[in-house]
């Protein structure tokens, strides 16, 4: 049942991209991450092209966050290679990270900077010269304009999440890595966030999104990688996955496909 071909470029994403369409924005080759004897991720490979959204799904403890952290350069892989925009995340870390925005599941903001100052700081870190206009636009987009002078302690969990994501958007990253991006958001916030992420993908950003909300993955992503016990057990477009699972039994949801895939033993 393994679906292992590289997914084709989505036809609905035809907006201009910042560099050659054929180039992979994210290239992961045989990524392995171990902690002592425990192998958290084993031989995980996939690619994401500009404009594409890849969903990373798997049961709890499958190795999703470990994979995303390795992609974000937060911890070095034990073996294998991760390339962001053509740059190796270890050997050319600075160049790779300049193209990247990593969004952890828990918004950890600086307690002593206001919302506005967070955006100013993020702009400076990524070398954005003209940041005032994008900052105002992002504050508007994430409904934080009224809270621009507030410290994180004065913001709700959802607002913190939005602010963290706004900080990641300010340098218009070519690659975005989201770990459970919708946690803590209200229904309207979820809808706006989905639109924000999709729009940026349409503008050419390559996105990896890890979530347990399978309907969200189904709605937003072009392709999906399923990981269990650190191993990739399925990879392909959502339609391919569903078709493989359905086996002519008619239409199935991604949730059904996911349950069917993850209930089996991993293959060698």
């Amino acid at each position, binding site marked *: 049942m393994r679906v292992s071909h590289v997914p084709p470029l989505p036809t609905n994403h035809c907006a201009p991209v910042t560099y050659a369409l054929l180039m992979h924005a994210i290239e992961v080759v045989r990524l392995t991450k171990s902690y002592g004897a425990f192998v958290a991720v084993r031989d995980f490979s996939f690619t994401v092209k500009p404009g594409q959204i890849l969903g990373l799904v798997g049961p709890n403890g499958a190795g999703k966050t470990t994979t995303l952290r390795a992609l974000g350069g937060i911890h070095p892989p034990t073996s294998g290679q991760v390339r962001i925009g053509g740059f190796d995340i270890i050997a050319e*870390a600075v160049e790779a990270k300049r193209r990247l925005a990593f969004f952890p599941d828990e918004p950890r903001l600086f307690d002593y900077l206001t919302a506005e100052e967070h955006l100013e700081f993020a702009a400076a870190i*990524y070398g954005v010269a003209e940041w005032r206009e994008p900052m105002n636009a992002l504050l508007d987009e994430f409904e934080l304009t009224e809270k621009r002078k507030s410290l994180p302690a004065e913001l709700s969990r959802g607002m913190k999440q939005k602010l963290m994501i706004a900080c990641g958007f300010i340098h218009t990253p070519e690659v975005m890595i989201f770990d459970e991006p919708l946690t803590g958001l209200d229904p309207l916030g979820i809808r706006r966030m989905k639109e924000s992420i999709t729009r940026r993908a349409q503008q050419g950003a390559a996105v990896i999104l890890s979530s347990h909300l399978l309907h969200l993955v189904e709605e937003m992503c072009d392709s999906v990688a399923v990981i269990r016990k650190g191993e990739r057990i399925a990879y392909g477009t959502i339609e391919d996955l569903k078709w493989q699972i359905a086996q002519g039994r008619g239409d199935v949801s991604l949730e059904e496909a996911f349950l069917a895939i993850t209930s089996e033993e991993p293959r060698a």
Partner: protein
Amino acid sequence: MTRAFVFVTVRSFRNRFVSRLKRLKNVRYLLSFIAGLAYFWFFAFRHLFDGRSAVRNMGLPASELFVDLTAVLVLAMMVLAWALPKQSAGLTFSEAEIQFLFPAPITRRQLLFYKILRGQPQVFISAVVMTLVLFRGAKFIGVWACFVALSIYFTLVALGRARLKIAGVGFLVRLPVIAAAAVGLGYLLWRTVDITAIHGIGAKLRPGGVPDLPALFHGPVADTILFLPRFFGQTVLPASVGQLLLSCVVVLAAALLFFELAARTNISVEDASIRTSEKSAARRARMNEQRIGRHVTFPRIPPPFRVPAGARPEVAIYWKNVTAGLRISSPWVMIMGVCALYFVVQSFSTSEPAIRLMMAMFALMLSATFPFFGSAVFTQDMRLDLQRIELLKSYPISGERLVAAEIAGPLTFLAAVELMMLSVAAIILRTADLPKRVEFLATPEFVVIALILATPVCAAQLLIRNAVPILVPGWALRAPDEQRGFIVMGQRLVTFAANLLVLLFVLLPAACIVVPGLLIAKFWLGGSMPMVALTTVLAAALLVFEVWLGIKFLGNQFEKLDVTDELDAVAS
């Protein structure tokens, strides 16, 4: 139900113990555990088995006098507990306990029983420590029984106060009544005191003296008032095994009675307990936030400058940390400023040379120690950013540049305050009447050396402090339930000792340049200032080079740092 309660109590205690034990497989934790254990041994338990030690003789002898004194202490606690202002029925439960137990089909009596049972491991440990440290003449089993009974009694009193409040007897009514009762009991007891028991007590307690002192209180009044408390005294300081057993039985029977009474108060503890538990958690979080170098005291202070367009990421990190320093550590800058001003004003307004000398010495001592303790106050660097290490690691900046930028912010404050304090000390020293052997402190050579070396020394000290979160992140950021114990104590000792050692190691090469340079200048070049300045600049350059090496090393380590190993447990 009792089985479930005992299970969770015993398992929690055992699991916590086992998880701590497992951590010792890690050499860094083992090292800190040994250091912590050694500290406790040398400062608390070393004299336990040393017959010659005076500390061993501090154990109270099992005499009637000390039984009476212990009984009075117990009585006072029992009476005064009713005067405490807290009058909600709130008992502190953990979030998990509230989630599992409150909706569970258990009676209030069972909930109370669970609460008392859960407190027992702590009561046990307290009894062990008290037996070893304070009541060394006592029998552990007696101290434990005494503590068990008292812990249940105080729960009864807490619920009793809440019941009284419901009955319309509030704190303001209780307070005078309890005060009057305490005074009355005290007066009645005082009338029964046998002064001869106290007479010559010092001589009798000398090593080798007879500890068989008679009772302090006599007569039926004293016997009535102290009937129960004396059993507590006898459990702690029994004269014989028979007395120990008897008093333990009575005290534990009293404990059962206290529990029965507490259960019969039948007061709604649930809502109040949720509030109490929330308050307790909030207090802990607040205390954590308000630790020195973390609490945002002045959130509205504007950033000192704007980051120039297209500036390097290092500038952004520096900007962030200076802004943080202004908002968090400004009070310390003010305190140091006020101190400096006070020293100057006091020195120049007095005609007493001794006061001027004292002010000069204070200023000098403060500036000499400030790089060390000041670096614990200005923590707006890797230490404060450790919680956001995921974010830091995703920034497009090399580890080396990040570490340098991180310490630049607090260094600005530390060096500024240090230079101010040194200048103040130099000014006062020039006017002070110094003793011959410390006259060199007021020489221009000394001032030049101090001023030139101040900033590199501060940088070295900050770098050492920043090594902890990078090399041993689990020591710098601890989970809420890991703030105490042998391991944490050991970690603090090891980091303190390592800090001093590394600082010494860093300063040694610079000293090897400065000292011979000074000697040459003094004895061969007639105190040549250019020579002094040259050697000092060379030493400062060497220090800067060492700091640069340290930054390169820590930057490299930062890039290798794997946050998952140690920090996930803290974050969760």
